[in-house]
């Protein structure tokens, strides 16, 4: 059967072309643009550098970050801390622990807090935002009033409040407190762009084809609404690191400071900032650098994923 075999060949060729994305899929074309974007390259260089440091820090740190090697050089009364010296290039902290080692190992905790807080916030926000945007009507009103209530409380204050609920704060409660605060931001953002999609011509066109509600929401509305959410999540990565630092500073963070974390180190430096600014400078610089890295990547991602910019 000549016709039959021709049809089979066609199926195979189609199956191949859909299986690998050598055609121009969304991800592939976004990647193509990103590879040539200096902003993206710079941002991702920063992130990759910090991630590598976080992973290999236990091996490259010259000393144990929790060992008080230089404790004898700390003189509380004269406000003196260990100076930079052979083997301790950045000197020690208020407890006489090697500052460089703490800075390196601190990348682990900080990145963990940032990534997990953002992920939890993102998942919660996507669920609420999709619910509100997909159904509209009273579901939308209900969800959005709840979100408005959360947004009406200043972000950091809400995080403190949630953090203070826990009798024994630890790393997980910090992550939870910071992430819950981000849920309404994501929800509102997603709901807004979902509503815009609802009114769009292609959703009307899909409706005119009898496409089911679920498919319209998940195939036609949600993917087109994700752009701003992706950008927001990179910004949230930065703010959740900062929020976690603030929680630590107020004593709502992980009380166990044997495992270093930049926010905690920054908070600990507050009392001696006029005499030993370097104790604040280094962790603050690291927080700013990683936040910048995420922000740059977020901005270039948004440009690359925006279908209107694609060629």
């Amino acid at each position, binding site marked *: 059967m000549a016709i039959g075999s021709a049809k089979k060949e066609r199926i195979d060729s189609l199956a191949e072309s859909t299986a690998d994305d050598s055609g121009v899929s969304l991800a592939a074309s976004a990647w193509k643009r990103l590879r040539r974007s200096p902003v993206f390259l710079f941002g991702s260089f920063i992130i990759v550098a910090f991630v590598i440091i976080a992973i290999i820090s236990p091996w490259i740190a010259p000393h144990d970050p929790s060992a008080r090697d230089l404790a004898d050089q700390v003189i509380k009364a004269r406000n003196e801390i260990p100076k930079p010296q052979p083997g301790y290039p950045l000197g020690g902290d208020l407890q006489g622990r090697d500052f460089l080692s703490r800075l390196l190992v601190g990348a682990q905790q900080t990145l963990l807090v940032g990534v997990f807080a953002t992920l939890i916030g993102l998942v919660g926000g996507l669920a609420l935002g999709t619910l509100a945007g997909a159904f509209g009507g009273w579901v939308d009103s209900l969800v959005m009033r709840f979100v408005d209530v959360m947004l009406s409380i200043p972000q950091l204050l809400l995080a403190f409040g949630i953090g203070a609920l826990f009798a024994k704060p630890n790393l997980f409660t910090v992550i939870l407190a910071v992430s819950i605060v981000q849920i309404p931001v994501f929800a509102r953002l997603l709901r807004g762009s979902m509503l815009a999609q609802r009114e769009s011509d*292609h959703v*009307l066109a899909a409706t005119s084809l009898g496409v089911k509600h679920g498919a319209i929401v998940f195939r036609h509305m949600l993917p087109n609404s994700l752009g701003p959410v992706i950008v927001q999540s990179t910004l949230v990565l930065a703010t959740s690191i900062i929020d976690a630092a603030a929680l630590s500073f107020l004593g709502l963070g992980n009380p166990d400071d044997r495992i270093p974390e930049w926010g905690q180190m920054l908070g600990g430096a507050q009392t001696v900032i006029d005499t030993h600014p370097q104790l604040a400078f280094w962790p603050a610089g690291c927080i700013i650098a990683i936040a910048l890295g995420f922000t740059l990547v977020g901005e270039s991602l948004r440009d690359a994923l925006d279908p209107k910019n694609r060629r």
Partner: protein
Amino acid sequence: MALLEVRDLTVQFQRKGEPSFTAVDQVSFDVEPGQTVGLVGESGCGKSVTSLAIMGLLPKRGAKVSGTVDFEGTDLLRLSDKQLRDKRGRDLGMVFQDPLSSLNPVIPIGVQVTEVLERHRGLSRKTAMVEAAELLEKVGIPDPTRRLTEYPHQLSGGMRQRALIAIALACRPRLLIADEPTTALDVTIQAQILTLLKGLVKDLGTALVMITHDLGVVAGLCDEVNVLYGGRVVEKAQRHELFAQPRHPYTHGLLASIPRLDAPRGERLNPIRGSVADNIPWDNGCAFAPRCPNALDICRERTPVQEDLGGGRLLRCHNPVQPEVPQEVSA
């Protein structure tokens, strides 16, 4: 019996604290299988709202739809959401004005064509892909297998509209509503798309409701024409009769305002003066009276009723344009 019988279709938009606005007012028309019916009028005359009302695509809150839309004996306005969803795409298709914004920008064309095949005919993705390629070929898209993997922004305007037509006709609906399908395209592509639509409708036996403001499109495509003004049908006629002898001053004005290539240079165009009023006053008078060259006193006092002139011709006017006496008396 007609495939589609629209009777007294009325659409009112209601806003809190404001008087309701009647966008479509007692519009009635029939579409026979395989026939092409035009709905013609300028912006704001209710043609798009009519098409959305037939498809049940108007927002439930705010829009009040009354009358009947009989499609093969069932009133579309009385169907449940689910029943209507099953009919859309399978029995009723629609092509929209702007082909770029009517396609989902983030998924490939192929998925958008197969979506409707999977939905209504229960095909697997693989077989649907093969049919999709055949469909694209049928609407004149070269290299269809490659095009299926591409995204809307990679296609030209004409290609996109062809793809939309392929999607709308994928399940061979018995009725296709085309809402200004060529407005966003340039003239040469317009002609191609119209020829394509004409051919497909003929091959598949699909009835077509053509919504347009372009009388050239009407001349090329439609069997029967309904001229809308202010939400009402002011004149209905067979295509030839409408062009040969427009009776309503509005229709006459529309035809007279088309620039002609054979007119002497320097001759002014003849637009219809004024524009469609926001809320069209059909109470106590003719809505077109303020712009009408033929308007009499009665036009501002009494609402004209629809008269049957015979031969399927309907007219709503107190003082119609008199038929011209044929200059050459045919033998």
